[in-house]
């Protein structure tokens, strides 16, 4: 029985290691939020996001936020940058606290027609609620 338990725990641990390795690989090579950060801060692209399936809801503002992407509490990989939809009444500071990062208001009343700002056409990465 003990051998079976050790084997089962080992299988679970190995599975979690593989998942962890997948996350590490993604963050090291494919992290889209970091790619946005690189594109905007180093290549001076004015647009953070103009794609995706999430849009601002009625009453949402769009916040452009940079936040450290962390592996656990201690190690910060790199900086991420993306657009987030959250109620306009929340304010940039409160949204930044939710993400442990820093935010600015990109559009206070976004619409699907927006051609200006860093977060175009009311696109955002996801919705944040207080």
């Amino acid at each position: 029985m003990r051998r079976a338990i050790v084997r089962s725990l080992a299988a679970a641990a190995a599975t979690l290691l593989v998942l962890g390795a997948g996350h590490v690989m993604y963050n090291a090579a494919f992290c889209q939020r970091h790619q946005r950060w690189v594109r905007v801060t180093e290549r001076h692209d004015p647009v953070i996001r103009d794609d995706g399936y999430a849009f601002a809801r009625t009453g949402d503002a769009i916040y452009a936020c940079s936040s450290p992407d962390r592996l656990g509490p201690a190690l910060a990989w790199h900086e991420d940058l993306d657009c987030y939809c959250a109620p306009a009444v929340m304010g940039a500071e409160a949204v930044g606290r939710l993400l442990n990062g820093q935010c600015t208001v990109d559009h206070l009343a976004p619409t699907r027609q927006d051609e200006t700002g860093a977060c175009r056409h009311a696109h955002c990465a996801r919705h944040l609620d207080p």
Partner: protein
Amino acid sequence: MTIVDATRSPSSADTLPAAASATLAAYALVSIGSSLHGDVLLVLGVPLTTAGFALACLVARRGDRCSAPWPLGRLTMLLSALAAVGLVTPALDDSVRWFTVATRIFFAAAIVLVAVFEGARGAGRRRVTMALAIAAVALQFAACFGVHVTVDLWSWTETAARALLRGIHPYTVRAPDLQHGGFDFGSTPTVYPYMPLTVIAAAPWVAWLGDYRFGVACCLPITIALMRRGGRALDVDATFIDVATLALVLHPFGTSITATGYMEPLLVTAASAFVFFAATVPRGSAEATAFLLLPALKQYAIAPVLLYAAFRGRARTIAVGVAAALASVAPLLLWRWRPTLDGMLYFVRAPLAFRTDSDSLAAVFFAITRIETPRAVAVVAQAVAAAAAYRTLRDRGLDGLLLASAISLLASFLVAPQAFTNYYYFGGALLLLSSLAAARAPVAA
């Protein structure tokens, strides 16, 4: 000594048939891969799902020539891997804390209990299986209270079912957008886009308990009962029946499927009913009805019907099955045919956008090349895979039909412009049922 006696000798008590075990491993890979979302979807999720599909193809090609019988320990390690993924799968949005905690405790306990299962014998194994099955069923019902669902699928099904209960044609109503314009996937349905039988199945639960997900939750216990009885009728080793039951209840996303309101558990129950009837009354009307109800529940289940006709077809039983499927559609068609057809064919006719977040090779291909795979590729893939699988498996009987059905569906999902975890939940379940059928004791010469 007959072959049956030989397979039941004490020395083989902890080894399981190679083809059945490999098919169950394919199920585990598909289930794990399709349960991985977010950052690891394309780097791990799709590759693992594809590996499961490839393993299923290998089993189809080689059958019991795959390898020596598998030790039970290898399968319990797979069960442990399923539980580990379930343990760390992120909670659905709008899950309440107690439900998330209960789910975590279930999967954590399962990692230990599958080891207890391996170390135990007969009755002990059954007790562990039943304990985990009962806990999984309890979580299914708890999901209806523990997750406040706002997806359009739930909103549409609830609205259509409530309309039917009020005597309004369910394909003439519009569902409210519970996400307040928060999502746009490139096509907003103007009509209930699913099959009539799903509304008919949902309506009693909406009337009785106010949420059709309770009906979906009932699918797991019914499926378990049908699977186990079917397995016994096929003379499958009790340990393998238990392993298959555990594999079903440890699906990492099983609770979330119900919590979201996906209808695939109904298809899984119908497929389990098919196995049960095929084992107890082979080639009868009951098995035909159960199997031919699949496309009456979900539009994508086309090739399996053709495979059924080719594998086990009898004109009379097929006629009964087709009549049952049509009976689920005819009343609404006769009531108002145009909106009913608009809804049933919505996914065929609507200009659906390519989903870059699909669980599919098509999404990986898009991420690399920015080229969208045309929708027709999925249809062609299903037909070609079904034909190829039939050619290879036509002499393999019940497990061959289920494996061929799984391969045809998984092939189409993997290249589809839209494919999500619920699709693979059903495709995977077909693999699981195939493994059960493949584990039947050899018939004495």
